């Protein structure tokens, strides 16, 4: 245990940063994730296939390419990056926020898929019943659909979190590897694997990463089970 936790300050920072980045990525991708999953599961519109494709892009592309595209778009000279920086003061390049963005984008297809699957499993007759009781679409969603897809939501969120904990290629390409700012655990691990004799350090950080993600996983399982038990779909 001592051996495991005998980290340099930079490594501690990487641990903290990784958790922060993964959490932020997860939380901020949930609302758009739900929205897009809803559109894909329920919507009938032109370009649905396209939207579906775009959502899956980060999965299909090598992470480095994704990172590069992010750099071109959200970098300080990129169109979106310049716009956001100017109007909202949101800067991604070389910031931990950029790491979160990269992790969020990489985990997005996983999250959307999970949520979409659960939305498709919802019994629409229940939603109709809620409608007859006076609930408009938004209320129906909030009081019936959302609770019913909670297990899928949890699954999607934890997938995104886990992915964020392991994401490396897009992150380092987009925001590089700046200790205390953008050096997440995977970047630190990468550095170790690239030097002869770095295996031990890599192993240690890997174990820490596993422990964190496992804890999150177990927590999500427990949560999902409790939600499921409460529900007991007939």
């Amino acid at each position, binding site marked *: 245990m001592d051996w495991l936790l005998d980290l340099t300050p930079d490594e501690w920072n990487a641990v903290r940063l990784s958790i922060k980045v993964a959490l932020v990525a997860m939380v901020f991708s949930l609302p758009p994730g739900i929205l897009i999953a809803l559109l894909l599961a329920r919507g009938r519109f032109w370009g649905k296939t396209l939207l579906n494709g775009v959502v899956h892009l980060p999965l299909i592309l090598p992470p480095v390419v994704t990172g590069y595209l992010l750099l071109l778009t959200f970098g300080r000279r990129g169109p979106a990056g310049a716009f956001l920086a100017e109007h909202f003061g949101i800067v991604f390049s070389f910031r931990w926020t950029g790491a979160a963005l990269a992790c969020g984008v990489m985990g997005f297809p996983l999250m959307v898929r999970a949520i979409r699957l659960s939305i498709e499993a919802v019994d629409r007759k229940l939603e109709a019943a809620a409608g*007859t009781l*006076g609930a408009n679409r938004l209320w129906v969603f909030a*009081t*019936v659909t959302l609770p019913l897809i909670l297990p899928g939501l949890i699954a999607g969120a934890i997938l995104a979190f886990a992915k964020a904990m392991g994401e490396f290629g897009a992150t380092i390409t987009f925001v590089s590897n700046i200790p205390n700012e953008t050096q997440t655990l995977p970047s630190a691990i990468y550095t170790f694997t690239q030097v002869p004799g770095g295996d031990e350090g890599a192993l240690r950080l890997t174990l820490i990463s596993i422990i964190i993600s496992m804890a999150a996983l177990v927590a999500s399982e427990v949560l999902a089970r409790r939600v499921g038990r409460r529900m007991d779909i007939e």
Partner: protein
Amino acid sequence: MTLAVDISHRLGDFVLEAKFDSAGRLTALFGPSGSGKSTLINLIAGLIRPDKGRITVDGRVLVDTQAGIFVPVHKRRIGMVFQDARLFPHMSVAANLRYGLWFTPPAERYANIDAVVDLLGIGQLLNRRPAKLSGGEKQRVAIGRALLASPKLLLMDEPLASLDEARKAEILPYIERLRDETKLPIVYVSHSVAEVARLASDVVVLAQGKVVAAGPTEAIMQRLDLLPAEERGEGGAVLDAKVLRHDEAFGMTVLGARAGEIRVSKLARAVGAPIRLRIRARDVMVATEKPTGLSALNILPGTIVSMKPGEGPEVEIGIDCDGAVVIARITEQSRQGLQLKLGSKVFAVIKTVSFDRANTGAGLPAEVGV
């Protein structure tokens, strides 16, 4: 209420083409399995958008395909009880019941949660999840949920089909009271003649997606040919009567109808209260001389005004008892034996106990409040 429907809608091979008006307080949709009752009620609720047509309730247009009007479900203020209960599995029974309250302005709430819970006998279920209820329990909760949304029109799709007689009998008076006192118009789907006869002011008979008859219950119930063969005996005259007096000694109530005095088991209704009686054709016997020494108490004199062959060896005899026609269903053998003809003076003999609660629209036990 006036409900006006003129709609056509196609589902796969099935085509529903329904046109009828109903100004009744409770309109029953009656017809065999697969005749389109649920489809029609879903159209009224707004759960299905019709291919073509128009539905109005009290002049309010719910849908009009020509004018491009379609009021969304949640704005229709229509309570619906589904054939399958459709309770929310993630909420307790209590939360299910209260669901509609959120969307009802306090001023428009007329249903009281405690009274409804008492009435439906679901007090001990409040903290359960729907998955842990029996079939009948689920349906009772579903009825409560719809009522508590204080709807302006209540649609019920065979809500009692999975209930036992005791529960049915407990709930029916409540539906009657809703019908009579809150002026809540109700559209009620059923394939039970007894339910329809008891509850409905108007009946719409559906068969294979078409309206084969529509009109006041009295008229429809006398047309035994509209009823399924198995239930013809359940049809018969439906008479409006008044409570004349109570006979405390024997626990009886005497009703006055145009046909004469009729004795039934004591009713919890004030003298003068209007009552609806159903006299099932199969409960009526015909006598050519006034019977004596017989346990039947109700013997109404009258004249035979119609004779129709019924199912198999039976005939349906219409007896005009001072203006109201009572229908009797007897065998051809008896008819010949008694030499009955149009114009014969006869007596309609009715067993008192044939007027059980289900046939009199007796209303609510006194202690239940809404």
